[in-house]
Structure formats: C-alpha cells, structure tokens
C-alpha cells in the first residue's frame, strides 16, 4: 500500500513535471493551463455531464480491451470496432417503417454489437486461420472502417443536397436518447457502462472464462494439454471486445452526435488502450482513470479559446501518464528480478 502511494506520487510528479516542461517550451503559462483544464471539466454540472458522456465510451472500450489483453491479444483494431458499431447502429436506425423508438433503438444497440463484434471476429479469423498478427490485422481494418464510414457519409447516406464532413442528416428527435434535465449525458449510456464494468469484473475474476483467457494469454501451448483451444478463446475475447466497442459507437450516434460523422470514434479506442495499460489491466481502476482521462479531454477543449493553446495538450498528459506508469512498473519489476 505504501509502495502504491509512493508510485502514485512519483508518477504524478513525473507527469506534471514533463507537461510543465512542454508548456514552458511552448511559452505558455503552466499553472493557468492546469487550472483551465480543471475548470473546463468540473466547473459546472453541464461540463461535468459532458465529461461523463466521454467517460461512457471510454469505459466501454476499456472493458472490451480487458478481455483481449487477458488473452494476450493487442486489439489495436478497437477503433475500427467503434466505427463499425456506429455504422451498425445507423443501419438499424435507418430501417424504414418502424414507428416505435424503443424498438428501433433496441435494434440499433443490437446491430452495433454485431457490427463491432463481427469486425473484431474478422481480426480474430485473420489471426487464427491466416496467421496475421492482430496488431496488423487490426490496424488494417481500422483504415478500412474509416474509409467505409467516409464512403457512407459522402455516398449512400449523404445529406440531401450536399455531402459534407459534418456528417449525415440529424436523427429524428424521438431517436435521441434521453438525458436527465440539465445534463448532457444519456441515462441509459451511464447504465450500460456501469453494467459493463460489473459484468466484466464478474466474468474476468469469477468465471471460468476469465481464468481460461488468462491461461491462454500466459501459455497457449500448455493450454492444449488442458484441452483448452486457444483459437476459440481468442475469437471469443475479440468478439466481446468488438461488441463493447460497438456499443460505444452506438452511444456516440444516439446520445452524443445524433448523426454519423467521420470521426465518430473520437479516438476513444486508442485512448482506452492507454487507459487499460495505465490501470494495470485491472477492472477496479478503470472507472476512475476513465473519469480522469475524460476530464482531461473535455477540460482541454477550452484551452485554444482561453490560452491559445492547442487542445492536444490533453493527449500529451495522457501519454505521459501511461509512459511514466509503465516506466515505474518496469523499474519495479527489474528490481524485483535482481
């Protein structure tokens, strides 16, 4: 426990020190920048609810990644899975002739899980059948998904009249997920994210699935002797990850943008990769770190306006967090080994 506190203090020092250095080089006021990020994220209910609306997809993607990391898979393809989830949701939302919003939204959620899951499965099949490493398969399919969504927005699903980067036409109001009054985050999104956290914890820590994924992640060769087929568990884990990412994509469409835009995933898949590594692949830390990362993301939005700083600063801070965490853990491990 003492060691953990020490690590956190040391890590925070490293992160703030390095970020301050970047700011100094950029010639910006260091304290004002930190203050603005904080105020931008937590100064009002509306701002905080915006943070939560980022927290939801980050949490969902992170939960999904926990499964693949457990099986020792590097699911870089999570970005593409978010995009395909959003596309799946949009496909369902565009089905003509269904009146009930509840029915059509339910279909959208299901379709997003299928879209994301299938995109994940594709990476899995490339790996298990063709021997394509999941990093390359995932990266390749991310580009395909990105191209696909652009084609849809500029082609078949373009706005009547003009096709534009601002995306497809807005959804009918009845298809917007409801938010608590004065808040900017969909209730159902929060519930889904919370459920995903609990379910993931149960499955990974308390079920045989979690144990088998761990075993395969550690030693696929030995798994064969226990009659556990690594291939089928690789596929299972990446389908689950894809479905989680797909849900995140669906929520981006139905709760945040209310349309399909080219950058629908907002890079949350990549951020979630960093987040999960920072959490040391533990479910317990995910909600808190996701809140921290979401806060940084939202808080940095106003930096360009107030301080004429690029909002990419939040990315710098997130990157520093992960690198310093890995650095500290690496040192610790090296020490233990000697």
């Amino acid at each position, binding site marked *: 426990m003492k060691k953990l506190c020490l690590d956190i203090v040391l890590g925070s020092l490293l992160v703030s020190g390095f970020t301050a250095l970047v700011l100094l080089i950029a010639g910006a006021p260091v304290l004002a920048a930190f203050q603005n990020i904080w105020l931008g994220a937590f100064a009002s209910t509306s701002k905080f609810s915006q943070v939560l609306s980022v927290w939801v997809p980050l949490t969902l993607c992170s939960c999904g990644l926990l499964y693949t990391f457990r099986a020792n898979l590097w699911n870089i393809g999570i970005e593409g899975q978010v995009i395909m989830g959003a596309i799946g949701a949009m496909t369902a939302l565009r089905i003509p002739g269904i009146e009930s919003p509840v029915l059509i939204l339910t279909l959208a959620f299901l379709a997003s899980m299928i879209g994301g899951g299938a995109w994940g499965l594709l990476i899995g099949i490339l790996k298990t059948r063709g021997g394509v490493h999941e990093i390359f398969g995932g990266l390749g399919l991310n580009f395909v998904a990105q191209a696909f969504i652009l084609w849809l927005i500029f082609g078949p699903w373009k706005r009547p009249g003009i096709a534009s980067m601002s995306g497809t036409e807005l959804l009918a109001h009845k298809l917007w997920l409801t938010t608590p009054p004065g808040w900017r985050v969909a209730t159902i999104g929060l519930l889904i994210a919370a459920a995903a956290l609990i379910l993931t914890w149960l499955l990974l820590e*308390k*079920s*045989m*699935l*979690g*144990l*088998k994924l*761990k*075993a395969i992640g*550690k*030693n696929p*060769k*030995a798994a*064969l*002797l*226990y*009659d*556990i*087929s690594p*291939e089928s568990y690789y596929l299972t884990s990446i389908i689950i990850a894809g479905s989680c990412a797909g849900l995140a994509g669906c929520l981006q469409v139905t709760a945040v943008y209310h349309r399909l835009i080219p950058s629908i995933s907002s890079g949350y898949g990549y951020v979630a990769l960093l987040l999960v590594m920072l959490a040391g692949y533990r479910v317990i830390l995910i909600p808190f770190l996701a809140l921290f990362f979401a806060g940084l993301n939202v808080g940095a939005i106003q930096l360009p306006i107030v301080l004429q700083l690029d909002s990419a600063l939040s990315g710098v801070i997130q990157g520093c967090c992960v690198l310093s965490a890995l650095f500290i853990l690496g040192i610790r491990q090296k020490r233990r080994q*000697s």
Partner: protein
Amino acid sequence: MDVLFQHISKKFGSVKALTDVSFTAHSGSIHGLIGENGAGKSTLMKILTGYQSRTSGTILIDSHEVTLDNPRHASKYGIGMLYQEPMDFISLTVLDNFSLGSPKQSQQELRFALESLTIRFGFHLDPNRLVESLTVGERQQIELLRLIHCKTRVLILDEPTTGISPAQKEVLFPALKQLAADGMTILLVSHKLEEVATLCDEVTVLRHGRITHHATAPFHFPDLLTAMFGSIPERKDKEAVRKKGSPVLLMQNIEAAGERHGLQNCDISIAEGEVIGLAGLDGAGQSTFLRLAAGLTLPEHGTIQLFGKKLPRSTKAGKLAHKLKTFFIPADRLEEALFANVSLSDHFSLREKQSPFWHSQKRARSQAKKAISTFSIKAQPDDHAEDLSGGNQQRLLLALLDSLSRLVLLENPTRGLDIRSGHRVWQYLKNELSPKTTIIFSSPELDELLHYSDRVLVFHDGEIVLDSAVTDTSHDSVAAAMTGLDEALQ
C-alpha cells in the same frame, strides 16, 4: 584462479536459501556441487555469476575480494556459466552464436577459432548450420566453445548432461578434464553421482542451504548419499511385468517431421497395460513419437489409431486424444505444460473436464491442498507455478494427471529430479494408475528405462531400430542400438 566462498548466506524474504556456506574451488580442478532439488546449488551459482546478490558473506577470487553485482562484473573476472537450458539464439547460425559476445575479431578469424576449437575437443559442428536444427547437446557444445573463446577461467556447469545423449557425454567429459588440466576452475552442479565420481576431484554437498559434506576423490557413495538425503533411499526392486491387453496405440507406416530426423517407417502396436520405454540419443525421434500419440503433431503419411479410433489429420487430433483419456507430460514443464504466473489451485480449475460457468475457487483450493499433501509439493495453493522448483513442478503435473487416464505419455519424466524425487514419480505412476493404463515414456537414462519399462523401443536417426521386451535385452545391446551399431539388430 581459486574461488573462495566465505560464509555466504542468502535469504529470500524469510526463507533461508543458503546459510553460512564456505568452501574453495581450486584452480585446475573440477569441483562438484551436489544436493537434492532445492538444496541451494543454483542460488549459489547465481550469486557467483552476478544474477543474484548475496545477503552476507564474501567471495574471493585469487585472494581478492570481488563484488559481483551483475553478470557483466562476473564475466569481467572470467566467470562463465553453461546453463541447463542453452541460452542461445536459435534463428542464428552456429558461427553467429559463437561470435556473439566474443572479443572483436573478423569473421574469418572467428571461423578459424571455432573450427580449431571443435577439432581440439572432438566436436562435430557445422559453422553454417542454424542452431534451431541442432540438439540440446550440440547447442551446449557451441556455448562451451564460446565460453572458452571468451577466456573464461571459472566455468560453471549446471546439470550439463541433462538432455544430452550418452555419446555426447563421452565427448564432453574428456573436454572438461582437458580444460581443468589447462588450469581452468570448473564447478559442476549435478545430482548424478556417477558423473560426479568420474569427473570431479573434490565434492561439496549441500542440503537445505547448508554444507553437509566435503570430500576429495575417490568418493564413498554411501557417505555422499547420506549427506544429500539424510538417509539412503531404499533400493528399487524390479517389479513384475504387467499383463498385456488389447491394442491401445497403433501406428502404421508413419512418417513425420520433427526434431532432427523426424520419424520414418514407424509401424508399432502397443497394448493395454504395457509400460514402454523409449530409448535413443537426444533428438532421435522419441519426442516426435510421443507428440504424435498425443495428437499434438500430425504425421505426413500413415495412420495412427488410439483405442481403435483413427486420429484425424487436423487440430482435432489432440482433442480426440484428450477425449480418449490420453495424457501427455512434456519435458519442458514451464514452457509447455504449466502456466507460469497462474496459481496452483487455478491449475486444478483449468483441468476440470466439465468446466462450470463460474469459477469455484473454494473447490480448487481444497483440491490443491489435497494434492500438496499427497504429492508433498513444497508450495501453497496460491503460489504461482513458476515459483516452484523443477521437482515440485513435476509433482504438480502428476497431481494434475487424471488418475483414470488410459494412456500416459511422459517425456523424460525425471528430468532435473534427484534420485529420491525421481523414484517418487515412479512410485506414484505404478501405485495410483490402474494396471490397465498404458505408459509410454522417454528417458536419457538407460537405467531408468530398463528398470521401469516392460518393453523398450530404441530410436536411431528417426527410426525404431530395436523393439524388445526388457527381459530379452541388455544394457549393452540397447546402448549399441542407440548409437546405431549393427550387432544390436541381430
């Protein structure tokens, strides 16, 4: 270069691995370091090579005190170690591996150095071959030559004959004697008394981290055994040959790739209840044979029948073998059979045939506890498999073995175990498994093969050259067949 150990102690947390160890390894001699598994031999050698720090005590090399904080320090003093598992780069050639870490020299000079060293020690190494196609024994030879070339003056050998053939042993031993005669200090870590007796000038015995005996050649075996184990392990008696039943494993016209020579023209039938010993030089085909039977390797030609069922030519073969209650324990336990940082009790959960949805830790822990006491595994249910010593890992694997198995395939089951642990493995196999269970095992130890099996198959260069009941053959004819001598075939 004399190496003096003075009052060396090492603690891991509260566990004392070494307590007040003092002795001297003299220059120009081979010094044996023997003891049971877990006696502290490896820890002591890791301290000397700078991989582990000592808690207290001093090491003097040529009367100078040395620190040895890291491996580089140690190699600066000319301390080199030949590991039990070769530490090499398998995708590089023999010459590349030899050159790595060698003093800066041109490719030609290095090739010349390698070739002259191979001739000097009577090894047969092709500098251009890829290391992955070599046997453990040959890889060890490269490592040894590299150490000599790097001006190693204190050579540590960790169980050097594990995994190498008797023929390679015949080459290795004179080489070591020659090196000692040239003034090198050699420390031999082993638990094979015969080897120690033939090679060593002096022997130090460790037990539970303390020195219990010190002797110079010639050695008195009963004393060494008492010092190692506290009491002499009882002599094993030849057991009655089991009754043969219906065929369990049938191989027809098998041809398969694997190891150095693969496996050719393999036609064999093995019956229920037989105990089959697979003899052969390292890499002669025994491992391929076992993996074929387990369905883990697929043959290129021919058919394999397990309990009358033909194994499919796909990854389903392993599944079917499993279903027919075939259990395979590979020699490399941590690499192929155990999950390094998974707890013992989780291993028991993973083994469950009908795995429930939820993971019952309580049940697994009680199973693990039971196994720990039955098999006297020195560990707790929550310990990770990687933290166990080799002997304890083997016991864990036996505990995981389904006692209802019908065909048990064991690759070198007593590898890295001392006499007593090895004996216990066999006691378990004979007592706990049904007499109808067929056991097929490979071993580099002829004594073990002849003692425990009913029938031996001798492999040579990927072919079975001798198939005989133990009662109809002898130590000498098996040894001759292993080396491919003709008289064994007559």
